[in-house]
């Protein structure tokens, strides 16, 4: 990758340590994606906020970086470990709370907008078509490329952070025109629900490379689209999909039917029931909260149900009164955090969790260390409310 004179000087350390670090990261990611140069970008969405995921090393790195680094473009951030408004209701240790506070403050000090959301596309209107952005959160990157009409690599926590500081990103293939998917996944399930779409995404992420075409799908709702993006981002490197029934004879064809679905379901579903329920991985949007409030009319959950949505969406939902029915049904509405790696779910107290999220299931099982009972929202409401 060719650097300009200015960029080379920054890489050599002439403009301080923060910029040197940022350019070192951009150089490696540029080489990795065969980019020939860096280009300006308009928006960076950063991951690496939850103390559970980045640990002491991450906390220290951000604290030092924030002493002299500032973001130079619009920058938003992923969820952290918990909701500061509700932290006293959970049994969290003081050290976790303090470390999380330090991480939050480091991002704010660098000039990042404190969105703490994995669904930036639910908070802001997306910029005009083909705008170049750098989204680290995998579901958001896939959403941006596939449904949002804007362009990003499937960035890493560090590459997006480097982009936020420099305002630049490698001009990789995904940012260019003419990226034809080499594979078509033929959706064979009829009347798929959001869980089926999550499983389809997980499957597509496993078999697909950078980009896939999905046929046999007609206009899924937003909940299903988000589930697809979340599942896909979890299992592989795939950063883009396209719904298309057009027959392109040159692309490889793979079927996703009952057999393929069951195989992934069995891999992720390890329990017949859950001690508690989580909804929102990715965090729920306004439309999903509106749906949920209608579905819960007159019903109450038999067990604890945690609902995750961004703070911006929660404010809107409160003013539209969607939250009334949801809270009456016994749900805890939590913002700034999500199902994935939240310390609010304690494996010493919880054996299993019910969720409709494939992404959530993967991290609940592998990172939190609890069993997972996967079922679609309609079934959760049918079986776990009265």
């Amino acid at each position: 990758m060719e650097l300009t004179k200015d960029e080379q000087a920054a890489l050599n350390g002439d403009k301080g340590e923060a910029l040197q670090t940022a350019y070192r990261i951009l150089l490696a990611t540029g080489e990795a994606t065969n980019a020939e140069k860096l280009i300006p970008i308009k928006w960076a969405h950063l991951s690496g906020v939850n103390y559970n995921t980045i640990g002491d090393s991450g906390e220290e790195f951000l604290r030092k970086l924030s002493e002299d680094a500032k973001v130079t473009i619009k920058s938003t951030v992923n969820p952290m470990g918990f909701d500061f408004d509700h932290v006293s209701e959970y049994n969290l240790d003081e050290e976790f709370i303090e470390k999380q506070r330090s991480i939050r403050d480091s991002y704010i000090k660098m000039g990042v907008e404190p969105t703490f959301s994995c669904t930036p596309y639910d908070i802001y209107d997306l910029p005009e078509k083909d705008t170049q952005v750098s989204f680290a959160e995998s579901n958001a990157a896939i959403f941006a490329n596939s449904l949002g009409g804007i362009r990003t690599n499937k960035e890493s926590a560090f590459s997006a952070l480097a982009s936020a500081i420099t305002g630049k990103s490698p001009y990789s293939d995904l940012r260019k025109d003419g990226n034809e998917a080499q594979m078509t996944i033929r959706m064979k399930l009829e009347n798929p629900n959001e869980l089926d779409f999550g499983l389809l995404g997980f499957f597509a992420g496993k078999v697909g490379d950078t980009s896939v075409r999905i046929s046999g799908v007609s206009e899924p709702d937003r909940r299903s689209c988000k589930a697809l993006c979340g599942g896909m981002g979890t299992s592989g490197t795939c950063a883009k999909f396209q719904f298309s029934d057009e027959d392109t004879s040159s692309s490889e064809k793979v079927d996703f039917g009952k057999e393929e679905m069951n195989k992934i379901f069995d891999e992720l579903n390890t329990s017949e029931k859950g001690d508690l329920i989580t909804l929102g991985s990715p965090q729920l949007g306004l439309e999903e909260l509106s749906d949920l409030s209608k579905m819960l009319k007159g019903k109450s959950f038999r067990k604890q149900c945690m609902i995750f949505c961004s703070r911006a969406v929660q404010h809107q939902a409160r003013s539209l009164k969607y939250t009334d029915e949801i809270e009456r049904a016994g749900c805890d509405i939590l913002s700034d955090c999500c199902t994935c790696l939240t310390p609010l779910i304690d494996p010493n107290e919880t054996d299993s969790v019910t969720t409709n999220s494939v992404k959530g299931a993967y991290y609940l099982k592998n990172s939190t260390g609890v069993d997972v009972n996967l079922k679609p929202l309609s079934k959760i409401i049918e079986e776990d409310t009265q």
Partner: protein
Amino acid sequence: MTKVIVQGKAKGTVLKTINPINFLGAVDKKTGIIHDQKYDIFEKSIKDSILVFPHGIGSSVGAYTIYSLKNNESAPLAMICKKADLTVSSGCALANIPMIVISEDEFDSIENGKDIQIDTESEKILN
């Protein structure tokens, strides 16, 4: 064809897996032990190895896991992949872990447990 992603030198024993690695989901950032039983290197530690794997997958925060491994002195000495992904590349860049990408044939020919040497400045990078 060998491509350098992060420069450096390393000498050590190969730990090879055919599974793409989800660093956030499958690797303990303190010890370097693989704790997802679906991996063929389940319960093995990647610490001080020359880690040979197809590529990284999953969460973008895996880059922090690589950086944490280095800080906790549990990181591999070098990483060799078939395909470079942004999570592993950026994690290695920040943690100063040499990383190279090699061809399918070269990947297949590397044996688990063998002692090898990487020097990105040398004419023959892999020995």
